[in-house]
């Protein structure tokens, strides 16, 4: 128990959408998700757009309120934290967003951006300039970048600034929400390597959100697959790639283009059909059954629970019941 940095229990987030004057519908962005992340671990979260990955990332940092469920951070519930206690939690849990072009304030210099957090939280940092320069060097930037504005940097450099800003709080846990999807491959590689090094150096715990399975595999110890608001499979990253159980995970894996022509042209084709359902009008039972090649009568009626099939491999599918 004690080595779980973060644990989510049956977390739900419904966004109301008004249809007519009185009737209300809900977008069930996250619908009953439970998982944990161990200390020093990187949990990868994959899924297609609209599967609720980003919403989940924001929920566990309390950036948006939960509809129901409970989140524990180092064994303590953070669901109802307020005021000073919430501020204290936010110090140790940080986030890096997808698009560095919009997550940095264009009117603040690098120095102002990085120093803002520690100032608000009243953290004793000694000489502020030295503090920021040290952080810049940690993320591979130079001291002369101190008083520059975001527009003077390339996309990769901006993302480094965003990472330095997160590190300024000396966090234990960071949510990385698609940190490299706005970047080119050659830049992506250096950011990913840096994130790995930082994790080892500071003993950080990551939740790594991405739609790119190859990147998630490179970064994560364990991977969770999400499909319309639910986690359908969790396993060690090697295990998940070698032995995917859920038909949706299999479909995702089959659709990644492999950068190797010998394998790419001969790999078995899994027929991919359909698109995810609208999160407002979800099918009953298993949410994947309309696209599932193995659908059985029970799939239509009852939603499968997430069960452990051994080897720390959990899957929500009636095939394995």
């Amino acid at each position, binding site marked *: 128990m004690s080595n779980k940095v973060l644990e989510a229990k049956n977390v739900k987030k419904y966004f109301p959408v008004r249809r007519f004057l009185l009737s209300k519908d809900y977008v069930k962005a996250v619908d009953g998700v439970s998982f944990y992340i161990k200390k020093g671990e990187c949990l990868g979260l994959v899924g*297609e*757009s609209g599967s609720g990955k980003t919403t989940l990332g924001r929920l566990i940092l309390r950036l948006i309120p939960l509809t129901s469920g409970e989140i524990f951070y180092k064994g303590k519930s953070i669901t109802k934290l307020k005021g000073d206690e919430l501020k204290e939690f936010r110090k140790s849990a940080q986030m890096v967003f997808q698009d560095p072009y919009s997550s940095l304030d264009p009117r603040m210099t690098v120095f102002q951006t990085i120093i803002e957090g520690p100032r608000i939280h009243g953290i004793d940092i000694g000489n502020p300039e030295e503090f920021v320069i040290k952080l810049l060097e940690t993320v591979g930037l130079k001291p002369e970048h101190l008083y520059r504005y975001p527009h003077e940097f*390339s996309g*990769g450099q901006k993302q480094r600034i965003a990472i330095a800003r997160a590190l300024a709080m000396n966090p234990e846990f960071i949510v990385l929400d698609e940190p490299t999807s706005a970047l*080119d*491959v*050659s*830049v*992506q*590689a*250096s950011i*990913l*390597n840096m994130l790995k090094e930082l994790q080892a150096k500071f003993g950080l715990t990551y939740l790594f959100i991405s*739609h790119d*399975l*190859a*990147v998630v*595999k*490179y970064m994560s110890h364990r991977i969770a697959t999400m499909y319309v608001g639910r986690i359908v499979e969790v396993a060690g990253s*090697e295990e998940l*790639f070698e032995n995917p159980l859920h038909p949706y995970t299999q*479909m*995702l*894996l*089959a*659709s*990644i*283009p*492999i*950068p*190797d*022509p*010998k*394998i*790419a*042209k001969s790999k078995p*084709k899994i027929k*991919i*059909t359909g*698109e995810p359902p609208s999160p407002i009008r979800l099918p009953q039972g298993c949410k994947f059954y309309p696209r599932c090649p193995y659908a059985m009568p029970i799939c239509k009626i009852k939603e499968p629970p997430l069960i452990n099939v051994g080897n720390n491999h959990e899957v929500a599918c009636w095939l394995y019941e």
Partner: protein
Amino acid sequence: MSNKEVILSIKDLYVNFYTYAGVVKAINGVDLDIYKGEVFGLVGETGCGKSVTSRAITRLIPPPGRIERGEILYKRNSEYVDLLKLPEDEVRKIRGDEISYIFQDPTSSLDPLYTSGYQIAETMVVHDRAEWNEAWKKAVELLKETLIPDPESRVKNYPHEMSGGMRQRVVISIALSNDPKLLIADEPTTNVDVTVQAELMDLLRELQRKKGTTILLITHHMGLIAEMADRVGVMYAGNLVEISSIEELFSEPLHPYTKGLLAAVPNPLQKIDKLIPIKGTVPNLIYPPSGCRFHPRCPYAMPICKEKRPPRKEIKPGHFVECWLYVDEKERGEAKNE
């Protein structure tokens, strides 16, 4: 390779953009032959000029861009015509008809005010391929071919009533409506999810096999190229630095940039301990580096790389590279003294 028919030949193409900040030398002498019936992949990172090259083919370069010089020879009715010298109305007849495009973002390539059926039919009517009645019927067939469920009612849908993957299928239908000889797909799946991407790629491959269309596929995704292309061109900072068959590019990459690119991409099937990034950043093309444009980032850079642009060499049949490493010393010395 000689028995293959060249459908499009780009020769010594230069494109500049005249911006307030200065002249961006976006395309710096590109030479490329595309053979009939093949899928030619063009890879490179943002800003390397792959899209500009593809648009220059039918002169779709908007001001302040200008095609400075070069030839684009297109085989039309067994004769080669230079698309850059043809009058504008002739090029318009070819564009969307014999040469058609699929662009990255289906939301902005479709008109929100017209139904999908209208937009598909319009392409055929404008190019005198059919009357409205007939074109409308053909639109339904095309949607069926691109695997849109319930095509009869989908033709009456407006773009906002469709998902991103569906919209891209409509764009593909438009591109295919006149049975193009050359289909230029510019990052056709960058905005869609992996599963939809796999479906669209299956679809393109299927159509290509059935109709023998030549495809120029532009992407930054090494995986997609590996799955789709027969031959590949690698672009860097406005230069086409390497051309090769797909197998050879992955097994024996020659140019240091290609090698770097391949080492930086995570392969999901392998256990990778460390990715190797390429040092430095893409240069500003207002002030491009002298000589070989890759030399500031190149681990093998030699003095001559700074001074002169490397010539193109055919190392193996069909495998071309522009790099001084593959030019023998004697020739290097001669080039230096020139």
